[in-house]
């Protein structure tokens, strides 16, 4: 057979592509549930690390099912809000079908462009509520979870993660425990132009909302500072006015 004729070439390539597409579609379908479970457990670990439910190392040593159980045991309720601060949905906290808003990219876009948002608020039984932040680092997206005390402005804990920041420099936002521990006890200045100040020598000002930027990671720090401010602004109508009390329902 002439393997160099036009008809053979066209049929051959079509066949190869169809077979490959079928194999990929099948694997993607088969593996999707376990991939989603991994992603969900990862988000829960980061949220519970911020909420100080358990030390970060311990959370990462816990298997997925253990993480789901821990979340179900500690969560009080979860809901979503709009930019006007009013609740616009609830998220299930039942262990079998935990609901999260874990795709933050479209939310970030909607906040900036003023579209419809469903910003999540996770209230834990300890009284702290966890909110996400999301923005752009130097090389790719960076995000994190901030836990706030029942007064709605004092930071109880934080956890940051990134896709591809420079190891040893920008990646410190995730790798170094001292960086996230710096946020504990700081107060978010809701209702002001700049709710949080992450900059070089910011701590010298003595302000309650200031944390020093990371040396050598100027762009990552700048991106994180901007992410914090954008998201704190988005939550300020909800958190800046009324404190979140876990023992009472929202008005």
């Amino acid at each position, binding site marked *: 057979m002439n393997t160099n004729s036009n008809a053979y070439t066209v049929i051959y*390539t079509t066949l190869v592509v169809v077979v490959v597409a079928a194999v990929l579609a099948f694997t993607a379908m088969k593996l999707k549930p376990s991939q989603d479970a991994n992603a969900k457990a990862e988000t829960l670990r980061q949220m519970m690390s911020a909420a100080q439910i358990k030390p970060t190392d311990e959370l990462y040593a816990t298997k997925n099912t253990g993480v789901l159980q821990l979340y179900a045991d500690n969560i009080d309720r979860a809901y979503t809000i709009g930019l006007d601060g009013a609740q616009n949905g609830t998220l299930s906290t039942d262990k079998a079908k935990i609901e999260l808003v874990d795709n933050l990219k479209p939310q970030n876009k909607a906040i900036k462009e003023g579209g419809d948002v469903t910003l999540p608020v996770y209230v834990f039984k300890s009284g702290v509520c966890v909110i996400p932040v999301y923005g752009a680092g130097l090389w790719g997206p960076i995000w994190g979870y901030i836990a706030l005390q029942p007064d709605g402005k004092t930071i109880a804990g934080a956890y940051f993660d990134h896709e591809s920041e420079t190891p040893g420099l920008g990646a410190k936002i995730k790798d170094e425990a001292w960086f996230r521990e710096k946020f504990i006890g700081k107060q978010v200045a809701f209702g002001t132009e700049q709710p949080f100040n992450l900059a070089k020598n910011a701590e010298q000002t003595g302000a309650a909302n200031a944390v020093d930027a990371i040396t050598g990671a100027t762009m990552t720090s700048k991106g994180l500072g901007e992410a914090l401010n954008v998201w704190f602004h988005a939550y300020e109508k909800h958190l800046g006015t009324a404190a979140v009390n876990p023992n009472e329902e929202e008005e």
Partner: protein
Amino acid sequence: MDKKLKETILNPILKGNPITVLILGICSSLAVTVQLKGALVMALSVTIVTGLSSLIVSLLRNTIPMRVRIIVQLVVVALMVILVDQILKAGEGTYAIDKQLSVYIGLIITNCIVMGRIEAFALGNKPIPSLLDGLANGVGYGLILIIVAFFRELLGSGTLFGIQILPAGYIPNNLVILPPFALILLGCIIWAHRAYDKDLQEK
């Protein structure tokens, strides 16, 4: 084992090492060698991808139309890379590593070793030798990756596989963590390899 087969397996690891002799796959050896764990997963992934895509292309070698052979090879390699990425994402223990390596796993497709071995070997050889050639090249690549990662993790973080090795007073060297140091280290390895094996030196 016959001599030719032995040669196929040993050559890519020593005398024809893809990184130090053929100077292929440099980009990823700079990018994923900050920690041993990442380097090990990358080495395994590349070995599996080169091995299996060489095998598949070798099986198809008499049916592939020569005019579109590069495209067909590319599709086969892409299939393998996506499968590896998907499987790493699905495993509970490998998820964190996949997240760390995400971009570079996808970039295995651009690793010259994979296409290079298919073009140079798998297209003209039987399936079993092709599989072995692919695997051996992956091992040769992985070996250098692990050597580089060993020094970078030890000097850059004072740890090996995340376990503290150097005393707590050791101040991690930030230069070691950055890619340029990997290039310097790679240069030293090539130097040592050439000094050891006189056949590799140009006259």
